[in-house]
């Protein structure tokens, strides 16, 4: 396996970062992004991107479930009976999601309330089941871990960008976990205070999330020719 030292990696795990493996990490960020290219997991991307804070927690939850699911399924790949493999995947994903839900309820009750059903819906997030079925079942835990991180990150960055755009234009603020919502526009700017500015309420509604995702797809395709289908 070729070694590459330009990435910050511990030497003992270098082989994990061969060219092929780096592709596993990098591809889902752009060329095969789960949201903008495969158009999976759109539902949660539209629903919980009103605030950056929620998007961060959601991304972390998906990252956890994705890594856990991919690694566990990959470890079990030679033991899982073919006939019940989908059920096994579901059980693994569902238990991880329940753990995430319980932990959020215990440590981040307010955010857990805002995310409401969408944490539970991670179970049905096609990105996760798709990766388990398409990758983890046929690969070793190492590459599966990278694949999981890559895909979760591909999901996460879209969520973060969309939520930042929506929160800035929709609420004139930005929120990070633990910091609450920081309104950075002076309140005297707002029309209600005699100023000239008004938040765009449309940004808070789900359709604008779809449009924002659409804009990201547009930008992505205009600079990545590989994504454009022939004819």
């Amino acid at each position: 396996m070729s070694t590459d030292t330009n990435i910050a990696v511990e030497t003992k795990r270098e082989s994990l970062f061969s060219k092929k493996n780096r592709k596993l990490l990098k591809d889902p960020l752009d060329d095969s992004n789960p949201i903008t290219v495969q158009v999976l997991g759109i539902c949660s991307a539209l629903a919980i991107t009103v605030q950056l804070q929620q998007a961060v927690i959601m991304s972390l939850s998906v990252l956890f479930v994705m890594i856990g699911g991919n690694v566990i399924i990959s470890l079990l790949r030679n033991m899982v009976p073919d006939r019940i493999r989908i059920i096994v995947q579901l059980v693994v994903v569902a238990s991880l999601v329940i753990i995430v839900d319980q932990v959020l309820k215990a440590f981040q009750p307010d955010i857990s309330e805002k995310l409401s059903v969408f944490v539970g819906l991670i179970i049905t997030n096609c990105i996760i089941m798709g990766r388990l079925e398409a990758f983890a079942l046929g690969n070793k835990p190492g590459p599966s871990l990278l694949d999981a991180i890559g895909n979760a990150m591909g999901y996460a960055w879209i969520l973060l960008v969309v939520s930042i755009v929506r929160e800035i234009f929709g609420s004139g603020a930005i929120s990070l976990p633990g910091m609450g919502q920081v309104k950075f526009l002076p309140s005297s700017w707002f029309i209600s205070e005699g100023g000239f500015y008004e938040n765009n309420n449309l940004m808070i509604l789900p359709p604008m999330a779809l449009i924002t995702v659409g804009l990201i797809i547009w930008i992505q395709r205009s600079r990545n020719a590989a994504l454009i289908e022939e004819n």
Partner: protein
Amino acid sequence: MAINKNGTGYTFGFAIVMVVVVGTALAATSISLKPLQQANAADKKMMDILGAIKVDSQRDNAKELFAEYVASRVAIDASGAQVSVKQGEVSTTDATDPFNIDIKKDYRSHKPAKGDLSWTNADDLTFPVFECQKEGQTYYVVPMVGSGLWGPIWGYVALEGDMQTIYGAKFDHKTETPGLGAEIKESFFTEKFEGKTLAEMGPTYFSVLKGGALTDLHSVDGITGGTITSKGVDEMLNRTMGIYLKYFNNATQRAQR
């Protein structure tokens, strides 16, 4: 010896082992996180009760403010008689504390028949009421549970010292439709209740009317597009108030004597 991975025996064995392992792991998680979750739920309940008497609170000061404003926690039975009273610090483990009466669970196990406004099968339940003191005034906070379109809805209604005028209300829901039924938790809806009064005679003490209707002292306008949720609020209010008003009437009579 090679094992036939696709044999029925292996498949069953795998499934059984998997279920046991997963079940144990989830049970362990749930048990170990339960105390924290219960504390969070108790804080939330305190915040909701304080919200009904228009006291703003955060998770970190809910306990203090609750101790400051809520003078006593009373449990009553379905006939309106007082069962127990607690004052002082709330203990989330003390089953006799009216604060810990799980009205959601009680509602689930004693669901009233359709149209049964007097909740005739609630005889063996107890109901909590929170007597609050704010700026020299007494308020009674009544918690309630009902059904919306998709799942449970619940709320806290604060009555003024006359036990008839609504001082504040707070509603919440589990899974109502965002933008429609879910709007019951928004302030534009709950503010409509403020200053309205409960009718003296039942079974309809208060109405949540269908969109755009003229409202009087005993009714508010419901939510457009959230008719079933609005009806749920209406039903919840009338059914619950039917029981609490018995207690309040008893209390008024006691006071007059």
